[in-house]
């Protein structure tokens, strides 16, 4: 008479240990383990390996994960902002939001709600007529306000709204930012989702790609955070106090910080406050120092809307 022992596979042992086997199979594995030293040893080895792995894996969180308070508060604020923005915009029928899917989401909610309203067809025609009328009026008024604001467009958009972009920093030291391998603003690409969120906050839907640069208020070169509270959409059409001029100030401030002539907190405040006033203060000037390139500046000044406006103006 000959006994053949069929041992359990590693997969069966693991499935059994993880409670992933059906009851009948699990009990068969259990019975086998009681009688087989070989499989029981392998089972123990696997359990040890799991223990070792978990030990290494847990080390990560013990050393590097910051407390939850800040991130939780940020999440709550973002949810409320997102929630209120969606509610306000949903009524208007067009939505910009933090994510691509949210637009369809909000539109579908409006449609869904509208379909539940009785006598919808009767009202729809009246509403559509009113909406069209209002849209025409709105367009006309927008055109007027655009023309009216042309004269004072020099500072338009050069400063962010303080309530939306007060400036935010991460905790870094002077040694960190002055180290040669510290990532610069050019390397810190703003993720598309964050850019969308910034545009949404500023109520800009479907921006033309050539219309705005999403710029850092406090540059990451001086510890500025990559967050919506530190970013704002800066129009490209600003030809005097634009991003290039702000870069000059940032480079100057970083030089001062790294040479120990200025502390980092002051540099950050100078950027998050009125950066144009800071520029004037540090460079002792009322106008940007860098020479504008006349032809390009002229070209940038006359963007196509203004050209069209000039032709249509009486």
């Amino acid at each position: 008479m000959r006994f053949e022992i069929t041992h359990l596979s590693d997969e069966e042992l693991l499935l059994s240990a993880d409670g992933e086997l059906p009851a009948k199979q699990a009990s068969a594995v259990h019975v086998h383990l009681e009688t087989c030293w070989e499989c029981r040893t392998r089972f123990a080895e696997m359990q040890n390996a799991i223990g070792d792995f978990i030990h290494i894996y847990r080390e990560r969180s013990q050393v590097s994960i910051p407390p939850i308070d800040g991130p939780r508060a940020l999440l709550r604020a973002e949810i409320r902002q997102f929630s209120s923005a969606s509610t306000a915009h949903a009524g208007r029928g067009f939505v910009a939001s933090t994510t691509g899917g949210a637009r369809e989401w909000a539109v579908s909610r409006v449609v869904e709600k509208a379909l539940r309203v009785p006598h919808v067809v009767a009202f729809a025609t009246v509403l559509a007529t009113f909406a069209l009328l209002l849209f025409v009026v709105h367009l006309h008024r927008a055109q007027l306000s655009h023309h009216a604001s042309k004269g004072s467009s020099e500072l338009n958009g050069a400063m962010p709204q303080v309530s939306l972009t007060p400036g935010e920093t991460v905790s870094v030291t002077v040694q960190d930012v002055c180290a040669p391998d510290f990532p610069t603003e050019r390397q810190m690409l703003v993720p598309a989702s964050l850019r969308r969120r910034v545009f949404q906050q500023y109520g800009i839907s479907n921006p033309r790609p050539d219309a705005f640069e999403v710029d850092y208020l406090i540059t990451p070169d001086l510890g500025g955070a990559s967050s919506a509270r530190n970013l704002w959409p800066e129009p490209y059409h600003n030809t005097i106090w634009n991003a290039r001029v702000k870069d000059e100030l940032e480079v100057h401030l970083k030089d001062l910080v790294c040479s120990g002539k200025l502390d980092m907190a002051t540099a950050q405040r100078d950027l998050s406050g009125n950066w144009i006033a800071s520029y004037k203060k540090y460079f002792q000037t009322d106008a940007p120092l860098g020479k504008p390139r006349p032809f390009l500046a002229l070209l940038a000044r006359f963007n196509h809307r203004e050209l069209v406006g000039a032709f249509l103006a009486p």
Partner: protein
Amino acid sequence: MSDSSRTSIFDLLLLRKPAVEEISTSIAIEATVTELFEQFRRGMLRYIGSLGLSVHDGEEIVQEVFLLLFQHLCDRKPQENLRGWLFRVAHNLALKRRIAKQAATKTTCCISADEHYDPRPSPEDHLFFQQRRDRLLSVLHALPERDQCCLYLRAEGLQYREIAGVLDISLGSVSKSLARAIRRLSNADRW
């Protein structure tokens, strides 16, 4: 023209006011999302870190995941197995970001051997632990990425079905990956 005046005209025209029940639902969803955030943030950060991203990137991804969760719940989409949903979205966003970062600088996946953390009782023990730890880490890094992801997700307590959902693979592949990974780790002490 101010934005607020435009809003009020359109809202009046469409008779659109947020209903009381809508607001209370929103508050309830916010509470649920916050609770889940407290429960899973740490694990998700660990998992994203294991994919080779920094804690800073991890925090941003986790914020985005929970905003999407809020949206998901507001939309009354399926609510069973939210843990699997959270890790799936985090996994996809983390891979996207990693690809974007790799384009700029070559980074490699996973827990770095340089992240020293040693609760050492004595220099001899320290040396022994360190050598063993380095050996385990090198075995871990040599595993196919899918096997590593299965390990990390299992370490976060996900069941095989959830892991299959996160990585978009079959149940059989999950158990094969895990068994292979554990076998290699347990062989790390042999030579």
